[in-house]
């Protein structure tokens, strides 16, 4: 049902479910609490062609990962798990790190692994409960201005 409206709106092919679903596939395959960020493979937060060049991504590609192919993703991560592949050489396997919630691309202490503010807090998308601008306030203000301009006119 979640896909009904977009389908109606576009009246075309099925929604994209390929690479954008890789994080969720990893979450399900490895029974993670939450899906990894796109940046576990890509150098940009929104992913994109040619940007999956991080060490973990290179290992996954070497294990047979193909873009947009979920079956190849599952096979590649299983391969890395079986081989104990450690892309960042920190002694912890990539899959082990994903399960532990650490970055398989950078060993701890290098300054590259989540040492920014809010470390450990997952990035979430969408407005939170606090501080979100309320569009309805803007609409009400505009309606009030419209009524005023009519009176003045």
């Amino acid at each position, binding site marked *: 049902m*979640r896909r009904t*409206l*977009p389908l109606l*709106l576009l009246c*075309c*092919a*099925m*929604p*994209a479910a*390929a*690479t*954008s*679903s890789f994080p*969720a596939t990893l*979450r399900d395959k490895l029974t993670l609490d939450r*899906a990894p960020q*796109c*940046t576990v493979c890509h*150098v*940009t*937060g*929104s*992913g*994109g*062609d*040619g940007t999956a*060049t991080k060490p973990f991504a290179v290992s996954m590609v070497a294990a047979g990962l*193909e*873009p*947009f*192919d979920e*079956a*190849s993703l599952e096979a590649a991560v299983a391969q890395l798990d079986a081989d104990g592949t450690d892309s960042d050489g920190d002694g912890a396997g990539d899959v082990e790190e994903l399960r532990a919630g650490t970055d398989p691309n950078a060993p701890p*202490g*290098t*300054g*590259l*692994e*989540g*040492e*920014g*503010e*809010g*470390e450990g*807090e*997952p*990035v*979430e*998308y*969408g*407005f939170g409960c606090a*501080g*979100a*601008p309320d*569009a309805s306030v*803007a609409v009400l203000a*505009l309606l009030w*201005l*419209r009524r005023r*301009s009519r009176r003045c006119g």
Partner: protein
Amino acid sequence: MRYWSLPALALLTAPGALAYPSMIAHGYTSCAACHVDPSGAGQLTQYGRGMSDLLVRWHVDPKEVESGEPSPAAGFLFGLLPTPEWLNPSGNLRGGPMVVVGSNVAVVPLVMATDLTATLELSPVVAHVALGFGLKNMGPAVVISPDPSTGELALVSREHWLGLKLFDDALVLRAGRVPVPFGLRNVEHTSAVRALTRTDVNTDQQHGVAVAFAGDLLRAEVMGLLGNYQIRPDAVRERGYAGFVELFPVEHVGIGASSLLTWAGRDLDTEVPLLRQAHGVFARFAPVEPLALLFEGDALVDTAFDAAGAPTTTVGGAAWLQADWTIIPGVHLLPAIESSAHGDGMLAGWLGAAWYPLPHTELRADAIVRETFAAAGPTSAFVGLLQLHLYL
């Protein structure tokens, strides 16, 4: 009817035309006349609808444009639903198949945008909102996500802002989620100059306050970035400024400069504290009327801080050169080359073609060959993309 008089005049001097930054080929330097956003891209104004129909659309009979009157189908929903002057509803529906050569999955169907937009204009106040469903990589634009970790199948709002138009619309003050003013506002949002500066109009809008000016010899916009309040925690929000200025020394030539500086306690991509700078130049030039050349070159300076507060600065860059050739009115060929050095090096060639067969309708095909020079060795990718774009 006053909306249509200027396009009609333009037609007398500009038989062929197109939209986007290459509109300079027809003497149009300002974006604000045709777009709700004073710096261009996105929803059209009523005037822009007329211009789109007269100058951008392909006409079976070229005499159709000689009257200077846009087709009734140029209105909202192809003219089926009349709207009052103060309300400008529209939509942005974009989708199509992508072909990745060498992939096991040969054809990937993509739904890229399903936005409905509305602009209320109660002079001098203007309000604009875009709402739709995000189906792929829409994280930063997500408003409500049933799956916050992926951002898939979420309600997204790329833009929502409240503005004030002053001095005969030459100055526009805006507050809300606004496209970041920087460089060419080209529609190819995956191009390196847009992606690496994080200034594309697909998802990279930021909350903040912006001032835009549009004059005959100069246009400019500067924005105070307060952060993208559609992502959490607060540490990942980038704060700083962005802006551009573009001068028009002679007709059909625009030369501009851009600057951006942001700080995030935890950069969204690198996870470390990051001071991000981008500074660049861009130019638009139309040597002959059917051809516009667009260039942008940006320097990228990232300063990351480790746990001890020690900075590490990396310098890179990105460049884009595109030709927009109007073969016949309504049909365009869009070759481009781009390169970047930001971490890995990249070199790419684009060949795009666009056809505007009906009002508010674009069919576009792109072939992109991209060579990435990573530490593990160079990799090549070939992507073909066919898009149907309805902008209602």
